[in-house]
């Protein structure tokens, strides 16, 4: 046997330093911050819708794309966030903009309580489990008079007490804050040691456990963060519409939409959901007046993307040009010592 040189080595890891990403994010934040100065109220509202979906998409991507557990029950947290906001503002008269965060907290609490049961399930079973959770809450609300049962609740009377000029812009600032917060949170989380563990769990739970990663803890934290963000985004979304009804709020269409935008944009990247959301709104704003054809077009886009660009729009660009605005992929560095 040939002699193999014994190299005493230690391993470390590193993530590429971002340059473009944070600069763009900063520019975007500045643009968005001055936007209300020249944007019309109608456009602000559209931005609110876009940002709410952006937050939800990031939160779903954190779960599915980075941690590897696919939820199709995000509407549970959207609904609880929205109902949390409506019930607290209607009952206590709390400022609805502040109540957005309470909605998020309510969703996080539900996340904490349901996690032990949901985490017993894996893969598709977990996905269905989250859907069941959403249906459960829908049925509870359908049968609770205080929550408006099947008829729903209106926020119009609360909104009427807020001066007209703050109605849309108030939601806008909360939405903008949460969007920036979400992107930074997800980004720094994934660049940290914790983020490395998160991706290890996604790639192979057994080996993650073998190197000392506490899988349950990782999953739990990610799940709760995702629930909180989704709850806040749900609250923002329904602050826009001013009316909730369990059928619309707990509809699985929400999850379908999230899957659509994240897959189209590029799952498992921070840029992906962003691109996907913009692409979806671009399609919606240009095509939705075509009624049935618009729905068919969305379906065709989804099929075509999955067949030809399975990594999504961003995945394609990122691979082609070898770029990463928000690098989260770690590289192993071997130090000779």
């Amino acid at each position, binding site marked *: 046997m040939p002699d193999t040189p014994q190299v005493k080595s230690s391993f470390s890891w590193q993530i590429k330093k971002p340059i473009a990403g944070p600069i763009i994010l900063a520019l975007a934040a500045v643009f968005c911050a001055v936007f209300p100065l020249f944007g019309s109220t109608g456009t602000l509202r559209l931005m609110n819708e876009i940002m709410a979906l952006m937050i939800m998409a990031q939160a779903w991507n954190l779960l599915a794309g980075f941690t590897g557990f696919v939820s199709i029950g995000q509407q549970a947290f959207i609904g609880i966030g929205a109902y949390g906001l409506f019930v607290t503002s209607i009952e206590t008269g709390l400022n609805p903009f502040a109540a957005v965060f309470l909605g998020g907290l309510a969703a996080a609490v539900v996340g904490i309580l349901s996690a032990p049961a949901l985490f017993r399930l894996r893969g598709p079973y977990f996905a269905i489990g989250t859907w069941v959770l959403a249906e459960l809450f829908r049925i509870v609300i359908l049968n609770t008079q205080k929550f408006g049962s*099947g008829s729903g609740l209106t926020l119009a009377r609360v909104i009427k007490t807020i001066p007209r000029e703050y109605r849309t812009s108030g939601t806008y600032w909360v939405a903008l804050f949460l969007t920036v917060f979400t992107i930074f949170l997800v980004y720094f989380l994934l660049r940290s040691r914790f983020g490395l563990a998160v991706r290890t769990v996604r790639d192979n739970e057994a080996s993650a456990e073998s190197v000392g990663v506490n899988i349950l803890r990782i999953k739990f934290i990610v799940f709760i963060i995702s629930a909180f963000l989704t709850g806040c985004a749900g609250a923002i979304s329904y602050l826009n519409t001013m009316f909730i009804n369990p059928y619309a709020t707990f509809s699985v269409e929400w999850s379908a939409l999230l899957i659509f935008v994240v897959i189209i944009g590029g799952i498992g990247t921070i840029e992906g959901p962003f691109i996907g959301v913009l692409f979806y709104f671009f399609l919606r*704003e240009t095509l939705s007046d075509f009624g049935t054809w618009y729905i068919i077009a969305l379906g065709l886009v989804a099929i075509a993307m999955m067949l030809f660009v399975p990594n999504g729009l961003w995945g394609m660009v990122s691979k082609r*040009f070898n770029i990463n605005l928000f690098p989260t992929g770690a590289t192993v560095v071997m130090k000779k010592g």
Partner: protein
Amino acid sequence: MKKSESTHGTAAFLSGLAWALLITLICSISMGNAFAADTIKIGYISPITGSHAEFSESDPYMISKVKALLKDGLVIKGKKYTVEILQKDSQSSLDRAANLTAQLILKDEVDLLLVQDSLSSITAADQAEINEVPLVSTMMPWQAWMFPRKGDPAVGFDWTFHFFWGLEDVMKCYTDMWTSVETNKIVGGLYANNPSGQAFANREFGLPAAIASIKYKEVDGGLFIEGAQDYSPFIAKFKTGDTDIITGLSYVQDWATFWSQAAQQGLKPKVVTMAACLLFPSGLEVLGNRGDGLTTEIWWHPNVPYKSSLTGESAAQLAAAYEKETGRQWTQPLGYAHAIWEIGIEALKRAGDPHDRDAVREALAKMKMDTIVGGINWADTPIKNVSKTTLVGGQWRLGGKYKYELLIVNNNAAPQVPVQAELKLMTDLK
């Protein structure tokens, strides 16, 4: 891993591209505001796709007619305006309807909103109220439009006006049919758990109260979740309760499931009167031949003795023209989809200045006019902002020009509408 550092330039370029896309999007949206002042903009929302799509089956036809009618503009107080119709699809979603309404108001700056959509008229009306734009809606019992919005019939609303019938009218229509025939006076009820279903199931003002008022006995089946697969508990209850009459509210799919299970399990009622699912010929066609004899309320029919204030057509002419042009059987929303335009255009005319939202609102608040669905009156109505339309009882029978035809069998509530046939018991058919 080896990544070239030179890619940052490309990265910046591409992200720039992404932002350019966003900015283009925003600009293209803001551009809508640039239109001239002498165009009247009317926003029209209806459920073209989604679960309520059947309610707007006649919309494309009606919109094309209205556009043709208005192609030379509208002359109001000697001034000529062009009319732009912004037709939007609510996708049968309350959320989408709210966002669309806000968009039509804030971005497109419409002068008037017309909403021909049951559920969406709630969220659309809330948005119109908040943003102070006149809105006319239809296609939902007035209670379901008023109470979820926390409205008070004595006070009403400022900007939103609704025309349709109420639960009390539909209840009366049902009980009028039941009392016209011989039964054991026991009624079974089953209701979808949604805003309309809950209103119908309400013990104080819903069907249970109506059943009690004619001293019939009620067997309460309860609420079912839409999409339920097994109705055995309901059927068992109705069988043990010996119900000659079945009533309630359900949509087509759920009703088809219930009705086939009822047949399998030997439930044989004499009269079946359901809301929602029996409105459209398609809802009957899915039942095969088993739909023969089912009864429902009629809010519009080719035989109603009303005519259009826009075109002068009678109801029969409107229905015939629709059937001829589209090759499809007439449906009830056709009349309402027409009437909403009659009202909207009349309100703009009476306002004098169609861009003056207050004037348009005043015109609506003082509105008294005859339309193809009968008289509209918001000027003196006991229920503020609501103008009630009339109902007659109808029975679906096999035969006629299409598979099923809907015959007017009871006109107690509106004697001006001629009866076409006698109500037949289902057990006497076949």
